[in-house]
């Protein structure tokens, strides 16, 4: 990814496997958020390929064919293959089912907590309302779809402990609750890959521990893989199956938490001195 003369991310290749929690770490300015923006379609990478496969794994074999064909999606039976770098941002969520959260929380602050969760189910509800036409005419099919959507919102409200505040503006919630709500809102889009940009930022130690449990539970109960950027090493080391380390836009390490903990390049990138000890985290 190049911005004018600045090469923000280069020579980066990694895999976030299904049902894994993959962490993307690195010092400030390493290009982590840029990678996220490329994956979720907010930036168009100047070169490179970002492929997402869901369903039947067989379809992965056709990746090169899809790349050469110049189209962006391929469906074979239950399997689907998406070339994310070719899709606009909203289609990445709508079709490829990649959801994301933001480093600085981006809720709809004036809308209620429940409305936030319903907006996340926009595409399904839009179809159910016959692209507004049936909805305006008051067809019962839309009423059914809406109560199903409210049920789903109710489930997530229960999960994040905000049932009692469902009718309050999202902007009135305390910071930690806003973070949980943003993740729940992303989950309402039923993603196969959930991208979290610093989910533990601004949380206290207690809340960070709860976040770890919350993410593990999400992974276990929904067929959702997680990719997260995080600076809080206690969270990263505690929940990740796989860690990718980025520095100056390049991958410097890739492996299990244990490997990364003892990796000399990583220590050098973080502390600037090769000989120093790993911080006790």
């Amino acid at each position: 990814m190049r911005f004018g003369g600045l090469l923000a991310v280069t020579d980066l290749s990694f895999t976030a496997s299904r049902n894994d929690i993959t962490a993307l770490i690195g010092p400030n300015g390493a290009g982590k958020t840029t990678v996220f923006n490329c994956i979720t379609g907010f930036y168009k990478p100047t070169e490179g390929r970002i492929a997402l496969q869901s369903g039947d794994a067989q379809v992965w074999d056709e990746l090169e064919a899809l790349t050469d064909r110049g189209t962006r999606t391929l469906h074979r039976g239950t399997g689907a293959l998406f070339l994310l770098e070719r899709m606009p941002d909203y289609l990445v969520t709508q079709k490829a089912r990649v959801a994301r959260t933001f480093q600085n929380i981006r809720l709809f602050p004036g809308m209620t907590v429940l409305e936030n969760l319903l907006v996340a189910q926009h595409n399904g509800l839009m179809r159910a309302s016959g692209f507004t036409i049936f909805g305006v005419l008051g067809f019962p099919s839309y009423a059914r779809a809406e109560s199903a959507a409210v049920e789903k919102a109710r489930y997530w409200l229960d999960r994040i402990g905000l049932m009692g505040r469902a009718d309050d503006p999202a902007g009135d919630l305390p910071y930690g609750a806003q973070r949980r709500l943003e993740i729940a809102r992303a989950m309402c889009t039923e993603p196969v890959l959930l991208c979290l940009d610093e989910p533990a930022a601004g949380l206290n130690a207690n809340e960070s521990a709860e976040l770890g449990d919350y993410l593990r539970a999400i992974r276990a109960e929904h067929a959702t893989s997680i990719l997260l950027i995080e600076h809080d090493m206690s969270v990263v080391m505690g929940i990740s199956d796989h860690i990718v380390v980025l520095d100056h836009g390049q991958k410097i390490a890739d492996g299990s938490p244990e490997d990364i903990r003892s990796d000399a390049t990583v220590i050098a990138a973080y502390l600037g001195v090769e000989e120093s000890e790993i911080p006790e985290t």
Partner: protein
Amino acid sequence: MPAKASTRLGLAHALRDAAITGLIAFGLFLPLIGFNTVQNIHNELILETRWPLLATLVAVIAAGRFAYSLLIAAWGDRPISGPRRARKLTGWVSHLTSRITPAVLAFAILYPALALWLTGSQGAVKWIDNFGVQILIYVMLGWGLNIVVGLAGLLDLGYVAFYAVGAYAYALLATTFGLSFWILLPVAGCAAAFWGIMLGFPVLRLRGDYLAIVTLAFGEIIRLVLINWVPVTNGYAGISSIPRPTFFGIPFNATDEGFAARFGLEFSPIYRILFLYYLILSLALITAAMTVRLRRLPLGRAWEALREDEIACRSLGINTTNTKLTAFAMGAMFAGFGGSFFASRQGFISPESFTFMESAVILAIVVLGGMGSLLGVAIAAVLMIGGTEIMRELDFLKMVFGSDFDPTQYRMLLFGFGMVLLMIWRPRGLIGTRHPSILLHSGEPRTLFPRARNPAVAAPLQPEPGA
């Protein structure tokens, strides 16, 4: 005694405030009011001084400031628009809104009967046409613009362009092809919606101030086209003898085929006026019903989400392009309906009816009313348009200020004064509270003050009704 001390402090403070204000007023009004140039009989320009007038003005302003400062001191140190007070007021307003709406609706329906009863058939024409119909046109335009500005958060300064498109679409098609009002009403709406989308495409990437500038330019482009495309629009001269709306084919005239003759009534212009009144009332109510309905549909929620955070919308898989274009199209469509009604009511239209001032008035109605609030917009329209019309009626002021005093000249002054006051007391508009489009806890009684304002009260989980 501390209370007395604070009063004395307040008095000193108020005096100082008044002195400063008086000084500023003196500096400001010295050149404006203190000196006056007049021509004498020899056609010479001479300078006159008006010290008494200047002194009176400065004294009035200083006294006003003194009273104001003292009032604040008497109220204690409570800030005027402190969050607590605002919250209390907000609770009241949202409570009142739900009670008032049916009453307002009933009044709107019964208004012509009331006017007829109070002023008789002759006098009622003025009250129904100049007040009722005129206000309702702006209520409808306000509600239409509310979709674009209030819900979708797209600041549109050229809304009058779509009003013009609707009016000219009706006028041109009716005079050229002789099509009826009822066929052309949807056609005008579609034409305006089409131009709404046309405007929408180039401005998709713009937000806030930049969007406002481009929409402003768009409004001017449409007006200039109407002025300069003489072969079609007849330029400044406008289009005249536009067919009046008929009662489903029966014209309102004095002939044997006319409305009065058909129904065995004595001919009177009042029937046409009544028909126009109820026509624009139904058009406005359709706009309101659509808005209320759309807010509860995913499209309406997406509009509001777009207003709150566009990037978050995109991250949730919402196609923001389509969402914005539908908002522009929907808002423009209602302006088109309003425009075709306007053209058929006036019987004559020219580009002068579609100046930027109109856009500004409609936007002011939406902002003063409280963005997103239908009742607030209606109240603001009544105040602004009704207020202007009322000023034409204040003939007794001529006795006070002399015969060449025209109260309507002071319209903009009062308008600006009202705007400043409102921005101080209710910065979010008359009704600035937002009603959630859906409530989870609808089973519980609505309390006067919204629950869970105090986190300590809100924290314990409420048992779910029916869950």
